[in-house]
């Protein structure tokens, strides 16, 4: 792998981590603010939404669970860690 490819890959990893982590961080801060000011929490709003659209909520959980399993659960085919 040359230096240019490595730089592109590093940029991709950074962008991916920033987008996912910052988005979740913003949601967590909003939920924290809701709790602090005693407003309806994100969980309550999600609950209302998922009660109204149960198929969408089920689909969302399936997608998140499938992604976690896909990324992190590969025991059977995994070689030992490299040097």
């Amino acid at each position, binding site marked *: 792998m040359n230096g240019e490819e490595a730089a592109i890959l*590093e940029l991709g990893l950074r962008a991916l981590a920033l987008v*996912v982590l910052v988005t979740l*961080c913003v949601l967590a801060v909003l939920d924290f603010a809701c709790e602090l000011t005693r407003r*309806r929490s994100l*969980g309550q709003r*999600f*609950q209302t939404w998922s009660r109204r659209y149960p198929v969408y909520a089920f689909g969302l959980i399936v997608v998140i669970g499938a992604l976690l399993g896909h990324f992190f659960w590969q025991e059977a085919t995994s070689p030992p860690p490299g*040097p």
Partner: protein
Amino acid sequence: MNPLAKPSLRSASGRLLRLVLLGGAAAALLGFAGWAAIATHLLATLPCQNNSDPLGRPASTLFILGAFGAFALGHVLGHHRDFRREEHLLPLAGTPPVVGRRRDRTSLLLHLALSLFLLVVVVLLTYETWAFWLPDPSPRWPITSFVRCADRTHTVPTLAAAWLVAFLTGHWLWHPLRRRPA
């Protein structure tokens, strides 16, 4: 007498616990994002050179079992919320959900944030599909390879980030069901 047997003390301690965990989760996510922006520099080395082989035992199991545990912990934390001030917002028992319920000033901001989150998921899955479109060996790196590279080169921070995501998912999507008595 157990001080937590008093309802007001129990709800205050539950609220404090929730504030600490949510604030801690937000701070940790911000820290991981900052760390990912400035400290990830191992993609040119093994094992990332070969598009990252997945992790083996026991780390892989730890990721999954820990994520399940964090998901359940997020749900349990939802039981420790003080609902007294929003009792009137809960749905009545035995009635279907009412559309157009009363909103406060945070509604628009929260709906935008949730829409943004779902949009990010769609964009990432679109990119994943595009990256996998070409036959192997593809010159495009799918998100799977980025994540597995992070698994292999920065196992502990990635493990903590995965657990945090599962914790927040459990807290937001597996909320305890509450209703007002009819």
